[in-house]
């Protein structure tokens, strides 16, 4: 299929703009949901629309109706801050309860939510290894094992034919896969940023590429070591 790609000896499918579906594990992977980001800002007087959590969870629910995954794995920064899970309110709360009941919901904990209490269901792990692939929040330098992580919010930005095209993207190397942020109000970091390239942990001869989802599949762009996109 046009959406398929191989990583760590397994087949994955690009699902929507910022999720992947792992067929062998029947798992939907998302990262950096940053639930309750708007209310975190409202605490300090910036009254952002209180619909970010419901929007994010509805997007997950929509993917669930396409793929009917047995489990959903959220790769950290699940809530925008430690207190976020206590602020989650209706109608988003009911949606999360439903999702966590209908699937096996797995929280990988991230730097924004060190202490997920799991009060909305699901199981929490620091990290997880499935079929030899490590799932963790932030890429670990020097780990030779295939690894899928989040944290950096990679975003592809390039002027194509005079038009700025800007879209969330995946970063893929032979051993590392970095997911884009899934949350409705999560911004992105330019995929060419040195921080992302460093996290790719490339050895000589290896190439990192950006995967950008489109309506019918995805486009691939090589990221060279100087941090510029090959055109």
């Amino acid at each position, binding site marked *: 299929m046009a959406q398929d790609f191989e990583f760590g000896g397994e087949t994955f499918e690009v699902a929507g703009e910022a999720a992947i579906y792992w067929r062998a594990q029947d798992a939907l992977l998302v990262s950096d949901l940053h639930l309750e980001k708007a*209310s975190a800002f*409202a*605490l300090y*007087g*910036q*009254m*952002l*629309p*209180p*619909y*970010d959590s*419901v*929007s994010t969870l509805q997007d997950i629910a929509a993917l669930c109706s396409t793929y009917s995954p047995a489990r959903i794995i959220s790769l950290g920064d699940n809530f925008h801050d430690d207190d976020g899970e206590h602020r989650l*309110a209706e109608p988003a709360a009911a949606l999360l309860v439903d999702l966590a009941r209908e699937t096996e919901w797995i929280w990988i904990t991230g730097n924004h939510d060190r202490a997920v209490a799991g009060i909305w269901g699901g199981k929490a792990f620091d990290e997880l290894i499935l079929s030899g692939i490590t799932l963790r929040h932030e890429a670990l330098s020097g780990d030779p094992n295939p690894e899928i992580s989040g944290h950096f919010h990679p975003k592809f*930005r*390039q*002027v*194509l*034919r005079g*038009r*700025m*095209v800007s*879209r969330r993207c995946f970063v893929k190397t032979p051993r590392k896969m970095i997911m884009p942020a899934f949350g*409705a*109000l*999560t*911004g*992105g970091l330019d995929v060419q940023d040195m921080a992302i390239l460093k996290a790719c942990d490339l050895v000589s001869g290896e*190439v990192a*590429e950006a995967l*950008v989802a*489109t*309506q*019918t599949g995805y*486009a*691939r*762009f*090589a990221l060279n070591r100087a941090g*510029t*996109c*090959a*055109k």
Partner: protein
Amino acid sequence: MTRNWQHQGWNAGKLSGIKPVVILPPIILDWFAARGWQPRRHQLEMLDAARDGRHALLVAATGAGKTLAGFLPSLNDLIAHPSDGLHTLYISPLKALATDVRRNLLIPIEEMGLPIRVEARTGDTPSDRKARQRVKPPQILLTTPESLSLLLSHEDSAYMFAALKRVIVDEVHAFANGKRGDLLSLSLARLQMLAPELQRVALSATVADPGDYRAWLAPNGDIDQVRLVEGAAAAEPDLTILLPEGRVPWAGHSGQHAIPQLIEEIGRNTITLIFCNTRFLAEFIFQKLWDANEPKYAIGIHHGSLSVEARRKVEGAMAEGKLRALVCTSSLDLGVDWGNVDCVIQMGAPKGSSRLLQRIGRSNHRMDEPSKAILVPGNRFEYLEAQAAYDAVAEGVRDGESFRPGSYDVLAQHVMGIACAGPFDEAELLAEVQSALPYSALDAATFARVIAFIATGGYALKAYDRFKKLVKDPDNRWRLAHPQFAAQHRLNAGIIVDAPMLEIRFRNGRKLGKVEENFAATLSPGNCFTFAGMALEVESIKDLDLIVRAATKPATNIPSYMGARLPLTTHLAGRVRQMLTDRPGWARFPDEVREWLEMQAYRSQMPKAGQLLVETFPHDKRHYMVAYPFEGWNAHQSLGMLITRRMESRGLMPMGFVASDYALGVWSLKPITDPQPLFSADILADEFVDWVESSYLLKRAFREVAVISGLVERQHPGKRKTGRQVTFSTDLIYDVLRKYEPDHLLLQAAWADARARLTDVGRLGDLLDRAADTMLHVDLQRVSPLAVPLLVMIGRESVAQGSVDDALLMEAETLAGVAMTP
């Protein structure tokens, strides 16, 4: 300094032949007399208005001594009744102008030996002086609309302004009908409440309808409360249209074909100002002049994206008479007057008669002598436009200004500022706000929504009731929930929201200016571009800095900036349409232009008065449709988007379109046999909403209202948020808000902006209304003469239609794929 002074027009009073009326104190009359001057008629009339306790609007040409006319009543009053508190507030749209007037006002005060303190207060004023000004204000304070708004947000503002007698709004024509005008009109309403006897004065260049500005200035829009004072008419300008060897190019906007004549003209004058319509063209023309500058004249460049240091340096060189010519943009439409400019050149189309007159006024500030100005049209349509502007100037006709209802985002900022100053009663504040003309139609329900927006975001989902910014007192007055919100407000208030920009600087830290992020994204290390007249090579791009060095190879790239297009005014467009139908009038046109129009009449048709000409013809294996509405680029651009959408749904297979200020061209794989349904007015109902919502236009508008209204912060205490971060978050916020609360106040505000400014939907509507009954469709075998200037733009300025991001990504990916094949 003295020279500046004279050119402000103070000396020309001798010519008015009017004996001074002895209402002025001897100290002022003596001062005039010592210079052999007399007060002018309009200066005395301003004194009359003040004595009669009336508000006043002074309309006068540049160089008529407007500034003095504004201040004389204040000096007069302060001499008669010395007082210590703040007496007069002077408000200028330009920070630099406030500094300049301060210099020019201080001289007479010093020379008369008056004990009057004059100080400036802008964003650049050091904070210790700002604090002192609030405790011990000067008698005359010079400031900007933004700084005044901030002053009013302080708890002690009631005390500070209690004894205020006069407020003088300078250059009111330049900003009254925009968002800064909205903000100032609200501040004026506040000031009038704090000081009920306050006299409002506005100074304006000549405008089409002074009544609009009297109403804007008046409390409650009551025009009769504002006396109109008119200055003597300036001498007619000496205006010419430059046609090198009778040539007018088919295409282009720069006027670069006239470069040799420009060099000659610079040699003939002491100082020449060369106005360009965009920053891009200013850099381009500067480059071309420099290449052709055999006589080695000192030529400078000035535009709004240069660093403040670079601009001050050029302005200094101008003041010292070190430059022979200065290439500039609208950055010099207002501001410092250099008396020794004796020629103004307008490159490309003038776009409007008012702006042209304003620019002409930059030259020769002696009112009795004509200003010399030269128009250099870039192409044949621009020639017609230049001729239309020439006629308008000769007849002294200005463009009409359109006034629009005040923006909600500005109102939210103002109300938050008021809340910072102290508790308020909702009904009382509504009455005060309604006394500002832009908000006179505001109803209580909408005002309640604005307050709810400030308090909790104003969402249908009541999620933030426990985080309220505003709470109600037991006595039913709104007050700030926490003082930290006042500090936050003062850091974020302001009306100007820049596009995301990168700072250009050398490695040693010297700043050159700014380019937009979208341009910077096209650059990689080693690329060269021209900026501030220099060829620069990119060393590296770090966060928001573009580090450059002097280029060793020639640079072909010039930065362009969004929103840089001045639309052709309705007034000039009407004149151009009229000129096309007036065949005998073509006799005065140069041969090239006349033959072009005659060939058009022969090969196709010329529209009659009121007709909209639409031509269809095959060309190069495609089918073209070209319409000539003359409604300006914005309206044509919008129409192009809408028409190609409609063509798409009707299976006509459109491939692209191109728009200019004069015409719109669309091409497709299938021929258009009947253009009428494509121009039907229902396109505004059916396709318009859909298109605007999915386009970048509304996101750009939303970004601005989100910042102005205070929904997102411009900066945090101690750390300025970058333009890039703001862009990310407001686009995402827009998407969420549009999905879950499409009727939210801020989306309404963004829509209002998108309609008024970005799509020119009013003119688009007029065009479509006209099209219904007056379309003249001509089907041709080949391209018409009138269509040629538009068709040669294709490839350079055409726009791919539809949502093409996916296609662009797939195309780019294929390239990368080839490059990546092992």
